[in-house]
């Protein structure tokens, strides 16, 4: 079934599974994150109440999204923030390039931003002669190796300290080899502080945008976000259009559940609320603040009442930390900007359910993700819905690539399946054959072959339960 479509994730995952170092790195890291999160929620009632509240806040924000975006834009503009809109990643990239060029900026220092990863902004800027340097330590580490993030919160989680030690000693000027984490951190600090000092512009993402005040909220531990947004004379922020929340009061519980769900911290080191560029009498801060609001398929997701829940996401990464698939294969196997369970529902909706059929079937639907999601996104339900969309062209649906994952073989499989199972007489015959001859089925037969890679062949019972109940004369009425 769908072998041709399923190669991307399946092959990459199979390769990852053969890397014991990678598996150990992820397992250790995820175990740590799971127990740290759990320690932050000692009272199940508090947790459920906070999840319910957060879900309600995000649902409400989405319900009023166009009005909130307009209110936010008006307020931010009044504060002196310049707001731009982009339909696509290409448009967003061009907008940012235009802003940088208008200021003659040649170097950009970046705080962590998944939307900028979505835009492949770094590559784009490099092609246009602008240096884009990642300053989040994890992002910096992977940028040195030309890699992409393997986790949305901890981008370098696939690497262990020996690997980073080797990499630093080879790629940072005058760096000696050390496995001491404090020394490694100090090396990065030295390089990056110089970059902050010299950079012409800084770029950041946005965790929450507050409509009533026109404020951009940034959550971080390292201070690179504050450096990127406050040291250079120009600050450009990028965000998906779903990030806006009506009131600052509503941000407080979202922030509380975000850090606890993400890294098991009650609070991050910094919560940075940016409302305006450098004002009259201020000695520092950026002279200009720009915000690019990106759609890139979000308004299409928004249009579907069920799929809209995807946009509630606050990017905590708890779904990946708890996912039995992600834990084993790591983030790169997904070949997508957003890995893990949230990536499995977000990527196909952005890129098309047919082409990323591999991702929507790369789940056992175990539900561990939905169980921990701070905004209760029903990820397994949405996966099933997207499986539906991939194989059908339902009227009224506007899902990207609907119906393009359909294959004749799968169609026929389910048609025959239904044909047999809705006719008890046919089912009885099939079961009769399975109980008598199931044993004789070769272990190398299609599909069974996939099962028997790591298991013995399933052997049907000699007599089915129904046959035995008939023999027993059980009550059938």
């Amino acid at each position: 079934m769908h072998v041709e479509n399923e190669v991307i994730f399946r092959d990459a995952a199979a390769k990852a599974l053969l890397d014991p170092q990678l598996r150990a790195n992820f397992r250790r890291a995820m175990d740590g994150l799971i127990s740290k999160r759990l320690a932050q929620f000692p009272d199940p009632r508090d947790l459920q109440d906070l999840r319910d509240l957060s879900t309600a806040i995000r649902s409400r924000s989405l319900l009023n999204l166009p009005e909130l975006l307009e209110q936010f834009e008006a307020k931010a503009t009044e504060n002196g923030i310049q707001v731009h809109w982009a339909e696509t990643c290409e448009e967003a990239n061009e907008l940012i390039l235009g802003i940088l060029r208008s200021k003659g900026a040649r170097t950009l220092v970046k705080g962590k931003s998944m939307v900028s990863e979505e835009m492949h902004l770094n590559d784009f800027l490099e092609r246009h002669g602008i240096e884009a340097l990642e300053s989040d330590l994890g992002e910096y580490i992977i940028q040195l190796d030309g890699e992409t993030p393997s986790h949305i919160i901890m981008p370098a989680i696939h690497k262990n300290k020996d690997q980073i030690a080797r990499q630093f000693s080879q790629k940072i000027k005058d760096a000696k080899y050390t496995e001491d984490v404090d020394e490694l951190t100090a090396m990065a600090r030295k390089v990056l502080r110089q970059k902050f000092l010299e950079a012409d512009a800084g770029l950041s993402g946005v965790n929450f945008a507050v409509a009533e005040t026109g404020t951009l909220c940034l959550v971080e531990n390292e201070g690179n976000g504050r450096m990127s947004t406050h040291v250079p004379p120009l600050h450009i922020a990028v965000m998906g259009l779903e990030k806006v929340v009506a009131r600052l009061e509503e941000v407080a519980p979202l922030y509380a559940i975000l850090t606890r769900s993400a890294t098991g911290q009650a609070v991050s080191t910094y919560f940075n609320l940016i409302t305006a560029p450098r004002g009259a009498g201020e000695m520092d801060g950026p002279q200009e603040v720009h915000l690019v609001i990106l759609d890139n398929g979000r308004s299409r997701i928004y249009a579907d009442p069920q799929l809209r829940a995807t946009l509630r996401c606050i990017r905590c990464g708890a779904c990946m930390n708890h996912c039995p698939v992600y834990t084993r294969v790591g983030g790169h196997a997904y070949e997508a900007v957003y890995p893990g369970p949230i990536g499995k529902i977000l990527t196909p909706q952005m890129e098309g359910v047919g082409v990323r059929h591999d991702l929507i079937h790369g789940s056992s639907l175990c539900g561990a993700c939905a169980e921990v999601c701070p905004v209760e996104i029903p990820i397994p339900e949405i996966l099933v819905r997207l499986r539906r969309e991939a194989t059908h062209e339902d009227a009224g649906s506007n899902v990207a690539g609907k119906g393009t994952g359909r294959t004749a073989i799968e169609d026929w499989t389910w048609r025959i399946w239904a044909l047999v199972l809705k006719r008890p007489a046919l089912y009885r015959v099939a079961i009769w054959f399975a109980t008598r001859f199931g044993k004789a089925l070769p272990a190398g037969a299609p599909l069974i072959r996939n099962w028997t890679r790591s298991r013995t062949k399933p052997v049907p019972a000699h007599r089915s339960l129904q046959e035995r109940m008939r023999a027993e004369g059980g009550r059938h009425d």
Partner: protein
Amino acid sequence: MNEVYFYATCLVDLFYPDAGMAGIQLLRQAGVQVIFPEGQTCCGQPAFNCGYWEEARDVARTQVALFPRDLPVILPSGSCAGMMKIHYPELFHGEPDETQVRAFSARVYELTQFLVDVLDVKLEDLGEPVKVTWHSSCHAVRDLGLKGEPQALIGQLSNVELAPLAREHECCGFGGTFSVRQPEISGAMSCDKAADAESTGASLLLSTDGGCLLNVNGTLEAKRSPLRVQHVAEFLWERTRAR
């Protein structure tokens, strides 16, 4: 509660008929008359999960029709019970027979759920001392909402020691078609589950669900482990039946 319906599920029908028989006997032992309607096939979950909803609905409709009386419907599977109880209402949303289906769904119980929450059964252990471990089926817990009913029943057995898995709530890797669509990942998950079970020192792994059992059993057999798996119904019945 004098009468109940019993729904075998296709996996129990074909692979674990002993578990089905045991479930029926446990109910009878608790003083309940069990009605086992003819014409049972499958709850429709495989097609539903793959997006083939019309096909799933066609099959589901024939199954709902087998249970016309207002009696509880008992399943020896958390996953299939979850399908019928939680997902049928979604599957039939907007269909002309939605009301009847919803009424049916409200009557669905997983076996141990019914034994504990409704019948409040008390079990007497007649078996030899044994150490077992427990795998909680994802759908039984997260879809259907089991709250430890099977473990509570096992806990009533005085000669049974329950050694928990290190990762009791982690998926065993079955996931229906997932096991053949993503055999490498599924296999890795199954191997980890099998290793976890082996390290408990138990001689038996129990679960509510045929899918998980089939998967873990196949994996254990492939690595020639002495550890066996058993459906919880069969285990409970074997240990409590008067001989």
